[in-house]
């Protein structure tokens, strides 16, 4: 009966998905049997007992205990069975493993952003290793969304002001579709993400080099993305106002006076040094509070930030 499953269901990319399919297909056959019975009788009786003459009296058949018990008790037993089956599979799928890889998911209109244990980030593309338990921790920045992975037969609503979790273990490597399933306005039907179930090597590469778009995105755009996502924006403005750190506006090429009295020209090397070893040369008037981004940003991202700062004239 695999054709039926393939026809009704998308690819099953986890053990849990296969269990859901088993139950779905079982329920389908059971309900089909009941449906055929209903249709058979609904068509048979009107044909067989079609009115031939007006004003005839019919039999007084208004009770039959055996029949009535049968059609109350048999369905009751069947649905209780289905309840326990569905309940067991559900609970099993929601028990998370202690060694699970935890990925933070943030939803907003109309975007999915992911943050990995090592600080890597990606947008609209979630990378997980195959056959490893994963635990997503999801929250929303604005309205309700829902993270729906048809291939894994799982979803959860994503709620602002709250964390929900979604554990799974994907067993089929490849690219799977993720939808937003809770209505969230104009961009709802385009709020996709891709789930990349990677081989261990692919996953390692991803963590080291970042998602595919980091390699192809124009540098300025990558820099802007990094500025927004990696936390630069919380201390460095881009409109010239003073914050915890110097503003990026008109920073490029400027000669800065440092706390120790010496001065430095803002060029590629200085920016790179300031990202990786921020306390080495702190500009006068600011505290040495910036953390090092060593290991958190990839080389191309650093180049991107440099180009982004150049562009802010």
């Amino acid at each position, binding site marked *: 009966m695999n054709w039926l499953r393939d026809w*009704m*269901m998308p690819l099953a990319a986890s053990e849990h998905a296969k*269990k*859901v399919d088993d*139950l*779905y297909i079982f*329920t389908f056959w059971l*309900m089909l049997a*009941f449906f055929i019975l*209903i*249709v058979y009788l*609904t068509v048979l009786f*009107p044909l067989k*007992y079609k*009115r031939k*003459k*007006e*004003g005839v*009296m*019919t*039999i007084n*058949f*208004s*009770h*039959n205990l055996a*029949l*009535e018990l049968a*059609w109350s008790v048999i*369905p*009751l037993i069947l*649905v209780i069975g*289905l*309840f326990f*089956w*569905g*309940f067991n*599979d*559900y*609970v099993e799928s*929601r028990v998370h493993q202690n060694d699970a890889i935890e990925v933070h998911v943030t939803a907003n209109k109309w975007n999915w952003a992911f943050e990995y244990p090592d600080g890597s980030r990606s947008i609209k593309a979630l990378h997980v290793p195959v056959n490893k338990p994963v635990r997503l921790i999801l929250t929303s920045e*604005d*309205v*309700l969304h*829902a993270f*729906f992975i048809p291939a894994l037969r*799982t*979803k959860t*609503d994503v*709620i*602002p*002001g*709250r964390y*929900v979790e979604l554990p799974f273990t994907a067993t089929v490597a490849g690219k799977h579709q993720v939808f937003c*399933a809770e*209505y969230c*306005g*104009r961009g*709802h*039907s*385009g709020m996709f993400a891709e789930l990349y179930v990677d081989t261990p090597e692919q996953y390692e590469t991803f963590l080291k080099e970042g998602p595919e778009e980091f390699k192809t995105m124009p540098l300025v755009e990558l820099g802007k993305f990094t500025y927004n996502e990696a936390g630069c924006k919380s201390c460095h403005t881009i409109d010239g106002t003073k914050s915890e750190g110097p503003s990026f506006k008109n920073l490029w090429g400027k000669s800065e006076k440092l706390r120790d009295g010496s001065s430095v020209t803002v060029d590629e090397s200085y920016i790179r040094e300031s990202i990786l070893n921020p306390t080495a040369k702190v500009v006068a008037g600011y505290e040495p509070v910036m953390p090092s981004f060593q290991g958190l940003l990839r080389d191309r991202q650093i180049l991107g930030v440099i180009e982004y700062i150049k562009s802010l004239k």
Partner: protein
Amino acid sequence: MADIVATPKSQSHGDHYDVDYLNDGSLLSWLTTVDHKKLGVMYLWSILFMFFLGGVFALLVRLELMNPGQTIMTAEQYNKAFTLHGAIMVFLVIIPSIPAALGNFALPLMLGAKDVAFPRLNLLSFWIYVTGAIIATVAMVTGGVDTGWTFYTPYSTTTDGPVALMTFAAFVLGFSSILTGVNFVATVHKLRAPGMGWFKMPLFVWGIYATAIIQVLATPVLAITLLLLIFERLFGVGVFDPKLGGDPVLFQHFFWFYSHPAVYIMILPGMAIISEVIPTMSQKVFFGYKATAFSSVAIAIVSFVVWGHHMFTSGQSQLAGAIFSFLTFLVGIPSAIKVFNWITTMYKGSISLAAPMLYALMFLILFGIGGLTGIFLGTMSVDIHLHDTYFVVAHFHYVMMGSTLIAFLAGLHFWWPKMFGRMYNERAAQIAAFFVFIGFNATFLPQFLLGSRGMPRRYYDYLPEFTPLHQVSTVGSWLLGLGFVIMAGYLFASLRKKMDAPSNPWHARTLDWQTSSPPITHNFHEIPVLKQGPYDYFKPFEPSVEGYHE
């Protein structure tokens, strides 16, 4: 002799004694009438107009989904179109359709009463309904609303548009529903004809009674919820929006605490009509009368404790989810009992396949699909996959439209001769029924497959792989629309004829058929005294109304 001994007829009544209710007054007297029959007819026209409006939005939604990407409208317009389709169909069509239109007309007649218990309250309910409909229309033309008919927070508290006005319309409509419910409960308790004990009431009355109880108990919760929503939007009171310290899931609990019982406000009256049409058209005693009567009440009670099955993925506790799943399965049992009772009622009957019966048989099949697919959704692990997909859309359309609305059509064709005193063209009715059946299934069967394959609902655009099924569905919606156009044609045509309907075209045994078609203003010349049960087709007919003739 006749000149000397006056009959009670000429003694107590004036010239209007035999005039039917359709022709006894001016337009103004219609608008201020307290006659349940006129109110029923006015509800009927209002609801049919709203159904037309909701249907146009439905066809627009389906047309937009003919192809991926933009077909005829933008995403914003699409979101408004499906919201208005849902809100109109639920609040302005399906909830009032059977109780307010057909129930108002038939309930007092079936009980052998002159009117409902509180005729003035009934008039008030009608005008509250009209007010709600007007407010909703104003909200539609002043920008429209894009929240979905469920008004989920915090989207609904943050999006633009006249959301507060639309919500207020639903709030107002709720009062119409509550007052109608109160009226019907009192009517059933107090105005049954002499001899009509509880178990001699027609099953339509049982169904409407169970519905009225839910309307009275559940609708105030919706009113409170919508009021809180309006307060949050207008004054920034933080109940649901987490940015203001509220909880969006709380809204869902409130909303479904009403809206799940509301599903039964919608389906129980449908079941009630089927329970009337099948024994009448089969000329058979109802099989399992008490089981059916009690199962209506059982459904009404259990319906209050299953709301959480709309929220398996919403982050409610897993224990709560399990309990709701279990209770949901239990509500399936009374429904199954009813289906088997209806089918067994036909056994060895004398079955007429006139239009009301065609729709009743259609109901059995479509409700079969709607009910059985509900089992998939009650099962937790399967529901997690199917939740918020087209599978759910298909399921509730089979229940809301395939069952309730089809039952409404069965009832409309059943009582049409009584309401307007005219028979419609039977052949045209068969053709329309054919298109409705084929069109409905072509529209919604493919949506089960779309859903199980992962197509989420409320999507303006979709992946190319879903295109063929969406196209079948859209073409189906045209066939369905054609069925309704034909229906409108022969129903309006029948109104232009002279009155030709007999008092009792279906050879029914309930009291509503023992007065003229259309009934006289006061329903019956004398108070009927019940002589027979409503479905005693195994013995000769003994009318309960003096002077009855077919």
